């Protein structure tokens, strides 16, 4: 099947996930091979996903872990887990 750009955009996330049917994947790849727009959309979407996974984007608040474990200490010292 010959896909237009819209079809390819609709499938970009599944293409990146690797969950397209082999036939559809081949159609998408055929389109990407000659369409500069769609291959740029693919690259930039992939880049956004790579950036999203980077721990530097959302840093934990300073001393988050320290405060958490200090609060846990208080609770662990005085409470047992509830019975099931």
């Amino acid at each position, binding site marked *: 099947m010959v896909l237009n750009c819209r079809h390819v955009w609709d499938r*970009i996330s599944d293409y990146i996930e690797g969950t397209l049917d082999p036939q559809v994947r081949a159609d998408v790849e055929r389109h990407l091979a000659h369409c500069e*727009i769609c291959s740029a959309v693919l690259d*930039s979407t992939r880049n956004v996903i790579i950036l*999203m996974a980077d721990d530097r984007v959302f840093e934990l608040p300073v001393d988050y*872990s320290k405060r958490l474990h200090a*609060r846990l200490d208080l609770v662990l010292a005085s*409470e*047992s887990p509830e019975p099931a």
Partner: protein
Amino acid sequence: MTTPQAAAGMRQEREAALITAILAGEREKFHDLIRPYERQVYLTALSLVKNETEAEDVAQEAILRAYRKLASFRGDAKFSTWLIAITLNEARSKLRQEKRASLDSLDNHDAEEGDYTPAVLTDWREIPSEALEREEIRALMRQAVADLPDAFREVVILRDMEELSVNETAEALGISISLVKVRLHRARLLLQKRLAPLLRIEWKGKAKSGMLRRLPWF
């Protein structure tokens, strides 16, 4: 070499042993059980409450709740999935208290519809992780995530930031796998549309000629 499956199996065994020990009275081992998930719990909270201080409160409450309810954890789910589901519940009850939930659900409704057209650029070929060394880029990304409709933000944070699988994301959120895929796709395109042009402008100053090819009609 250890396969990812084997590593996951070892982690699960280690967690099961810790949980048994905690329930038998070695309470302080809860620190060890929770430590690998601190970041994930915080990000999950932030996916709903959008404010760092509130997210920290939610994360603490969720972790305390996980401790108190530990005996009800069933080994058939992953501990992380269980913990994330608790965190999402905690965040939602916080939102309900603030009566923001009803407004958000209206936003979500609109966002499920509509046309998703990506930003068309041809100049973003390389992996730009060096860009994250700049705080303004990180701030742009945080803002773009914060501005996503709630239903999209939850999915993209669990799948793309915390790197849960699609199935685990569905399980943690209590929605179908196909809904996860639809929301994930739309969230990614929204982020692409929002971020690709901004990042391109950010880099424009640094890049010399050649890198930034514009389409004639763009």
